[in-house]
């Protein structure tokens, strides 16, 4: 077993573990942290496959943006600031362990060239850029699903707005026209109430 295969199995084991923890952890913050680990590990496996664009994209987009937003939402559901402060210290050990694991993974994947001989037959010929290939495919062969994906995103936006927007806020302006027409009986309402004994 060469070094790359070893790294692959190591990353896969972490990936399966992290994915399992995402669905078994009772604490939503723990689940979200493990999901970050799973995405990061997935990026590592893609880097091993020489799909460097996908690897960087998943880390930038999912770990960097989507998951941070997730964590914010999960933590903000409890708006009590003190509890968030407490939470910070209680989550620190787990966060530190997961962070160290990611640094280790990054070292294994990026540093693998120093730890072994370069692969004689690389899957991708030298000089071919992954990013450039994906970009070219996206606007040629895959232009149809690419454009449709933009419609899917638009549907997502329309759906989010239609489900959450509740109309403009009522301003407290007065309508002079209605004020002029007001009568005494509109202002005072006489209620019949039984006498309360105390």
């Amino acid at each position, binding site marked *: 077993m060469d070094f790359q295969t070893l790294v692959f199995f190591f990353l896969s084991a972490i990936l399966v573990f992290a994915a399992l923890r995402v669905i078994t952890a009772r604490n939503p913050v723990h689940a979200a942290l493990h999901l970050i680990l799973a995405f990061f590990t997935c990026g590592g496996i893609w880097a091993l496959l020489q799909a460097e664009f996908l690897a960087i994209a998943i880390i930038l987009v999912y770990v960097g943006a989507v998951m941070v937003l997730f964590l914010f939402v999960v933590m903000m559901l409890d708006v009590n600031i003190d509890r968030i402060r407490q939470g910070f210290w209680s989550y620190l050990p787990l966060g530190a362990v997961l962070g160290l694991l990611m640094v280790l993974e990054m070292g294994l994947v990026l540093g693998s060239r120093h730890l072994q001989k370069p692969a004689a037959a690389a899957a991708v010929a030298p000089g071919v850029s992954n990013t450039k290939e994906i970009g070219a495919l996206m606007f040629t062969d895959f232009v149809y*699903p690419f454009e*449709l994906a933009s419609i899917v995103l638009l*549907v997502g936006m*329309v759906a989010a707005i239609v489900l959450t927007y509740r109309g403009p806020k009522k301003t407290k302006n007065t309508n002079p026209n209605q004020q002029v027409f007001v009568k005494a009986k509109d202002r005072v309402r006489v209620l019949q109430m039984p006498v309360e004994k105390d």
Partner: protein
Amino acid sequence: MFDHFVVPDLLPAAPEIFLVVMALAILLIDLFVKDSRRTLTFSLSVLTLLGCAVIQVWTRIGGVAYMELDGDIYPIIRYFANAEGVVYTFSRMFVDDLMSDVLKLFLYATVIIVLFYSRAYVIDRNEMNKGEYYVLTLFATLGMMVMISANHFATVYIGIELLSLSLYAMVAMNRTSLAASEAAMKYFVLGALASGLLLYGMSMIYGATGTLEITAIAARLQDANGNLLAFGLVFLIAGLAFKLGVVPFHMWIPDVYHGAPTSVTLLIGSAPKLAAFAVAMRLLVGGLFDMAGDWQAMLVIMAVLSMAIGNLAALVQTNIKRMLAYSAISHMGFMLLGIVTGVVNGNPANALEAYSSAMFYVVSYVLMSLGTFGMILLMARAGFEADTLDDFKGLNQRSPWFAAIMMMLMFSMAGIPFFVGFFAKLAVLQVVIAAGYIWLAIVAVLFSLIGAFYYLRVVKLMYFDAPQDETPIVASADMRLLISANGVAVAAFGLFPGTITVLCLFSLAHSF
């Protein structure tokens, strides 16, 4: 890098492009609509779909040909594109053949009818009376068109997502209703799970064949790793079964049909069945035809279970939307019988008749389901849903004409001669018997008999019970006209089933 790339021919996709442009325009125009009935948004949406239908026909027709069937001569539209009538574009991701043309025309008609039926219902309900309702309907239609014309796993998936996302939002649109929010949440979670299964299956088949293009998969099936393919197929079938709503992936159907606003139930219960049928044909027949033995075995089990659970569970429902949901499960199971009898012991001689009978079944089911949900919408008014069986009591005394239409629809659903539902069942049973599965035909007939009970109970309630509610049924003229036409169509196609049969046979013969 671009050596192989051919600039795509946009003409076959002209209806899709027109629909997108119009949907975006309607999204903007609606912002300036002052009218609380949104007549402009509604009419533009209907016109858009009519325009799509015109473009679909106009870019295809080359003349009229004649086809002989059982000694009779039928006029048939001739295809101008090429002899086979199959056009690929967008690097073979998009396919336009006669099956897609026919299904898309049925799709446009279905969605137009859905829009007309749901108009009054939507106007009466503040939460739903928004321009986005129409825009999301159009985007859902686009998703179905993409599914029908997909020749690539990426387009299949993105079409399904476009349809599902629009439907999730539409189910949840009635925000004040707890049942609707619950239905939307269940639909969303289970739908996401099904998409995951489908993607997992697709990735395995990609791993085995090295391509995502459906026609290319068919060519490479022989040299592929059999185990990996079989695993991929299982996941693919699971994802598809969810979209079709057959047992054991049916759990979402009753809750969603019941919880969703009736106008959205009407949409979910009609048009997507056409698209799901098309995707099943593309994936299983177009792509994995050489593995027919494997997927037929799986689908037979699903078909029998669907007919059993669908019909038995429908017996005990008191809510008519829930009852129709279980009836939808049993109908989809019955339709699967047509798909599973295509190849007998490796001999595909029967295939065309079998798939054509399934297509006939789907089309006639959509027609009947439009009518029955339309009747519920007709009887509903502001603050009243008319979705329990008791609401149909004594309908004959309130409106004999609508009671007669509902009776025809129920007879057709039950498969009583001579309505279209009978001929749909007959066509499927014929191919099942021709394929030699006598036991399967007996099971299908037995469960249809059980199913007849709950359809006939609705007829009994309408004609022999006293009405609980004497409010006169108020409906606009177009609604009355369309629902009458729908009921009459169920009877008329029952008298002349040959027209749809020939259309299905001819379109499938000139596809793939």
